[in-house]
């Protein structure tokens, strides 16, 4: 019997018992569908996080103060007030620093902001003009903080589009208006271009003011929240990290780097940590999905075994009419493969559909990774052969007389 006739024959027997065929396929559909959906969602979130971190700026180093320790009590990292404007100025002017292009000392604090009757709670960041270049901030209207604003401690603010929406309403022009922050009245001189992001890391929900204004006029603080540094190129990131590290160690009078009251993180460090976390997450999801795929495969084997018993007479007849052992094995294997491949294709479409819908709901980029599809299809084919083999052997070994007598 040629293979084409056999395949047609198998399609015939599968369509005869639609319920059984449908149930067998369902297991594989769910297995493959969840593998593809979960892996592509995992990869989408990984990509989303990578994109967001990269949009913070390139060749970026961030110096943060260490934990505030008093006696044996260790506070949260970044809570100390050990980083000062003098540190930033030293990095700018020191002859030992050769790899840093620009320096942006920052002071940030959350505060209530009001305009007329509207108010919102947002992040106030005191910055140098260099901040815009380092963090890749552009203004969609008006101007950013200038050197003159900084020198004159001007009461001006550049606000993010989210703040515009919260205080002035969507699409309003806030330039020239005055907002009140922490008892001070600030004039809006610019609006930044929307960057996206969400939650506490929303780069559109911020108000930029000159550093001097923030420190002296608004919050009365003499320390910095962080210093952003831009290295001259990607290649000197490590050198830059070391130069700045030794300079600050010397300034803060530490000899042991592990005791330092500050930390320097490069963008790569953040990126690596983040992708490690999301990678683990993706693996975990894939693992869960793989289990459901295995369960689906066992389901196919179960149904095929039931089929062999149920069709004992048919197998006996086929053997009596001249079907050789191999033909019976092929018939059952092909049936199992048709089941798993059909399930695989439907599951693939379902998985792509689910990840499309979920990623658009969750605002993630929609990615389909061809390897995960190839893997899922390959696995479903292998499952067909693997779990079809045992029932096929069982069918082929039936003796025709016994099989014909079976009631």
């Amino acid at each position: 019997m040629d293979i084409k006739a056999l395949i047609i024959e198998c399609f015939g027997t599968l369509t005869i018992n639609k319920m059984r065929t449908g149930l067998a396929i369902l297991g594989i559909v769910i297995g493959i569908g969840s593998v593809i959906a979960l892996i592509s969602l995992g990869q989408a979130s990984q990509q989303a996080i990578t994109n967001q971190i990269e949009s913070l700026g390139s060749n970026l180093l961030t110096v943060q103060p260490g934990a505030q320790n008093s006696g044996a009590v260790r506070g949260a990292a970044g809570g100390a007030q050990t980083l000062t404007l003098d540190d930033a100025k030293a990095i700018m002017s020191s002859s030992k620093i050769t790899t840093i292009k620009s320096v942006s000392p920052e002071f940030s604090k959350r505060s209530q902001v009001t305009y007329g009757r509207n108010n919102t709670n947002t992040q106030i960041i005191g910055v140098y003009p260099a901040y815009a270049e380092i963090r890749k901030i552009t203004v969609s209207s008006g101007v950013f903080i200038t050197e003159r604003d900084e020198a004159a401690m001007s009461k001006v603010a550049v606000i993010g589009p989210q703040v515009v929406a919260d205080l002035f309403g969507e699409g309003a022009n806030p330039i020239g208006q005055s907002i009140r922050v922490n008892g001070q009245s600030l004039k809006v001189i610019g609006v930044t271009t929307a960057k996206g992001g969400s939650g506490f890391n929303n780069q559109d929900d911020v108000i930029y003011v000159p550093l001097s204004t923030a420190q002296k006029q608004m919050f009365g603080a003499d320390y910095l929240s962080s210093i952003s540094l831009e290295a001259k190129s990607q290649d000197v990131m490590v050198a830059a990290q070391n130069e700045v590290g030794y300079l600050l160690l010397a300034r803060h009078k530490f000899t042991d780097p592990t005791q330092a009251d500050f930390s320097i993180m490069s963008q790569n460090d953040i990126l690596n940590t983040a992708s490690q976390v999301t990678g683990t997450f993706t693996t975990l999801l894939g693992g869960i999905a793989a289990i459901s795929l295995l369960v689906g495969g066992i389901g196919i084997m179960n149904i095929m075994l039931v089929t062999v018993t149920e069709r004992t007479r048919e197998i006996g007849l086929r053997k009596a009419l001249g079907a050789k052992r191999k033909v019976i094995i092929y018939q059952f294997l092909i049936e199992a493969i048709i089941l798993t491949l059909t399930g695989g294709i439907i599951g693939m479409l379902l998985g792509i559909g689910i990840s499309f819908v979920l990623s658009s709901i969750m605002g993630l980029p929609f990615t389909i990774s061809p390897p995960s599809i190839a893997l899922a299809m390959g696995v479903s084919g292998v499952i067909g052969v693997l779990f079809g083999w045992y029932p096929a052997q069982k069918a082929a070994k039936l003796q025709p007389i016994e099989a014909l007598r079976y009631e």
Partner: protein
Amino acid sequence: MITVSHISKLYKTGDIETVALSDVSFEIKKGEFVAIMGPSGSGKSTLMHILGALDQPTSGEYNLDGESISKANDDELADIRNKKIGFIFQAFNLLPRTSALKNVMLPMAYAGIPESERLVRAKKYLEMVGLGNRMDHTSNQLSGGQQQRVAIARGLVMDPAILLADEPTGNIASNQAAEVMDIFTKLHEKGHTIVMITHEPDIAEYAKRVITIRDGKILEDKKNK
């Protein structure tokens, strides 16, 4: 055509040996219509299985149309059943929910005959058994007699050396049984070799020769008048 010489068949269940056939010998020539009779437990089913190459004798020689069947392996037996033997079973044994046409085409598929020829031949034999207008009916849409006629067409389609019928009218209403037996008579007139197993004397009447078996041995071998 068929030479059975000194065939014995023993079944072993644990320590108990049962003799199903003991030292049976006979010959059937081409074109004969033979009935094998006997009560249940006489060994006639065992003989039918051996004649149909579904089982092999414990000892003795069985030669069908020039092929020795006693020594053939599983796949060779499948091939012999496919090409030399046309089976007609008591319970018809058609594929369920499958059309008459597809049922008749099945043995040809196992022989590797191309689809177009399978179709032509299946139609020809279905017309011959008077089911030309019911080829697309599935087996459960046909009466017992019609199902048995589909089975006869399926048995003939490979142009086998013998037609082997096991109680062909056992599951059919008596008026339809006559129809089926008329087909056997016609096939005999056309020169087909037919071996029929039955325990009903009036069905055995249709055959030209009756071999009676009892306790695994041939009791009588006589010509019908």
